[in-house]
């Protein structure tokens, strides 16, 4: 298992480096922050001073070298916009997104397993068709539209939920999580259903039934366990995709997470914050990939077998 883990970490670290380099260079190609931060009538000297103070007067490789040196010392620089430490800003915002993503994925996976299994148990039944329709609809609705309509219906018309915000009881979670949930739920239901249909028609299920195992044990003990592998893989990918959804949800609902921070720092060319946010997100995704791989290996012996052999 240690060898397996080591190999996985090594192979994931290379893309991580590419992400960091890519964001660093692309951000700098997208425009000069001087115009955004200095008054419109700033003189040439003021501009030069600003550039020098933030190192923008150096060549991109020189800036990159300085940046990497800072990152090694865990110094992520200062936000151009707020003057705060970029590392602190990102660490303050990150838990908010993590909370949303974690709760969303747990609900999405559990709900998808339930709905997907029920649908797969009797393929082409009315229940199956209804759940497929539900899943397709959920996976296709644009999250932006869903969020705004949710606010208008449940926030303004029915007055059941607050329109937005993070201060309040459990009700404040409902719309943001529902918005984030729809796509992963829709996709996962289809994946669970597909792999459960295959698993339930596999020979070992017939064997289990012929041995007199209970239906509950057949479905959840035998079939589901084997159907879990693709679900886990897809759920891992969808969790990574939640970062995109988080941008929309956090922007609309005023949730102070890393998605909102990232979009603001892109628009404001706040390089230090953008880089810190991308780095932290990339490390998280990298860690998540390893967790998914390990879980995969734990569930399915075939995955870890070649490494051990």
């Amino acid at each position, binding site marked *: 298992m240690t060898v397996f883990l080591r190999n996985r970490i090594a192979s994931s670290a290379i893309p991580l480096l590419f992400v960091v380099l890519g964001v660093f260079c692309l951000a700098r190609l997208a425009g000069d922050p001087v*115009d955004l931060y200095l008054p419109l009538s700033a003189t040439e000297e003021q501009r030069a001073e600003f550039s020098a103070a933030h190192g923008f007067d150096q060549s991109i490789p020189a800036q990159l070298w300085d940046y990497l040196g800072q990152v090694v010392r865990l110094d992520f620089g200062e936000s151009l916009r707020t003057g705060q430490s970029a590392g602190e800003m990102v660490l303050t915002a990150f838990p908010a997104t993590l909370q949303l993503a974690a709760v969303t994925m747990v609900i999405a996976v559990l709900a998808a397993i339930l709905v997907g299994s029920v649908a797969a148990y009797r393929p082409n039944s009315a229940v199956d068709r209804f759940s497929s329709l539900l899943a397709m609809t959920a996976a296709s609705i644009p999250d932006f539209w869903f969020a705004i309509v949710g606010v208008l219906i449940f926030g303004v018309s029915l007055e059941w939920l607050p*329109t937005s*915000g*993070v201060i*309040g009881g459990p009700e404040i979670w409902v719309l943001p999580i529902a918005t984030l949930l729809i796509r992963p739920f829709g996709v996962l239901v289809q994946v669970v259903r597909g792999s459960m249909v295959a698993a339930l028609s596999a020979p070992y299920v017939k064997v289990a039934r012929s041995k007199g195992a209970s239906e509950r044990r057949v479905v959840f003990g035998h079939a589901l366990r084997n159907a879990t592998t693709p679900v886990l893989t897809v759920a891992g990918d969808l969790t990574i995709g939640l970062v995109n959804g988080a941008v929309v949800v956090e922007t609309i*609902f*005023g949730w102070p997470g890393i998605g909102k921070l990232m979009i*603001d720092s892109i628009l404001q060319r706040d390089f230090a914050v953008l880089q810190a946010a991308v780095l932290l997100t990339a490390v998280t995704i990298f860690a998540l990939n390893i967790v998914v791989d390990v879980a995969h290996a734990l569930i399915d012996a*075939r995955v870890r077998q070649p490494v051990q052999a």
Partner: protein
Amino acid sequence: MTTKSAVPPTPSPGRARASLAALVSTTLLLTSACAVANSGDGGDAGSGAGGTLRVVLGQEPPTLEPCEASLTSTGVVVRSNITEPLIERDPTSGELLPLLATGWQQSEEDPTTWTFDIREGVTFQNGEPFTAEDAAFTIDRAVNSDLACNVDGYVFGDMELTAEATSTTRLTVTTGDPDPILPLRLSFVEIVPRTTSTEAKVREPVGTGPYAVAEWRTGISITLRRNEDYWGEAPAYSTARYVWRAESSVRAAMIDRGEADIAAALDPEDATEENSVPYPNNETTALRLDGTEAPLDDIRVRRAISLAIDRDGIVDTLFDGEADPAAQLVPRGVVGFNDELSPTPYDPAAARALVDEAAADGVPVDRRITLIARNSQFPRVAETAEALQYQLAEIGLNVRIRMTDTAAHLQYQLRPFPEDAGPVALLIMHGNQAGDAAFTASQYLLAEGPQSTFGTPDLDQRIAEADAVAGPARQDAFADVLTHQDETVAQYAYLAHMRGLLGLSPSVSYEPDPATGDELRLAEVSPAGDPRPRDED
């Protein structure tokens, strides 16, 4: 390679259950350990009961540093709420009114020197008394320090300025050249105590204003509490809380739902008569035509563009009637506004004739012009750009649209302009919050102005002359500058003087003025049906 049979390993439901339990408990732990969401009444902005005024902005202020108050997102919270200037400008009449200075005058012997009488009996929110020394310190900090304050570049440019306290109640300000509008410029300097850092900008300032910063929960809210020792009339609300939502529809929903009392900048589609009030916001939209590139270097083509724009149509259909067709870059109320200018009539036939005439003289009128506009610059900006593209195509010009974000738009707006961009028609929105056309002329009309593509020596001369005079002569001189720009330069095809929409709950009473978007004075807000400020606690 080992081949495994399809028979699964013996299931161990115990382990599966344990994994599930671990997953759920980890999630719950994460959720509770780093909880963003806390319990509280009535959402982020509070319940509104007990004298809390709830304001929802479009974005979180990057800082509350007073010398950055010319930035809209900072100024809307700071100005006249937390800090105050020596002099304030009435946003409607343009008149200068005493605030922390009770009077001022220009020296007759030496017109580079102004003296200001400083109000007595005023204290800062930290308890320190306010004196002329604080005023001198603040001006010096904003204009002469290395902080690169926004107000310095916006209002003072590269002016030489020294401020000195000759007694606790007397301030002297000396400029390099005589400056007839120095008091107006100083109305942008928000006064801070002399203990404020000159090395770094401050995020949470101390001032003399009716409200003090109580708490800033990064990303969530800013709470101000009433300054009980305020020297002026006490404001009605004991607390004000700002939150921010990027979406206009959500801001409007918060007003409709009663979660907020005031909402900044609603889009027309979200505004109703019940949840909002329109107000002139001093912003003017126009196409800036790059007179250094053919075919825009030909004045007939520039005039044709102005004639081709159906201003009434755009105002009625795209701006929902909440704007007025414009004939100049500054709106009424700004010194220099020329009452005699009227919007260019919509006359596509005349426009087409001018383009044909230019074409006959060899002007390459079919060269592609790039119309650059900025996303979210104003409501329905993309549709406006499309309408303009269509109207210009109708008179035989070849126009493509490029929508950009703010940073990319600024590259085209400010000198040095990108090279090889070809002929550019830039959709601009100019807000003259200073109330004097000098601020517009120095930026947009001078031949080498930071936001101007070209000009003429004659126009530059007229601007310099207008800038040197005061009083009614100044009004006439700048009005003449605006006429002259239209007749001989025609760098701009004006669109409209815009109006903003302020979300306003029926539970509060407030009348927005042209400065509301930049300076939302909380002390002017009172509970509905009670126009006079009163104590609620």
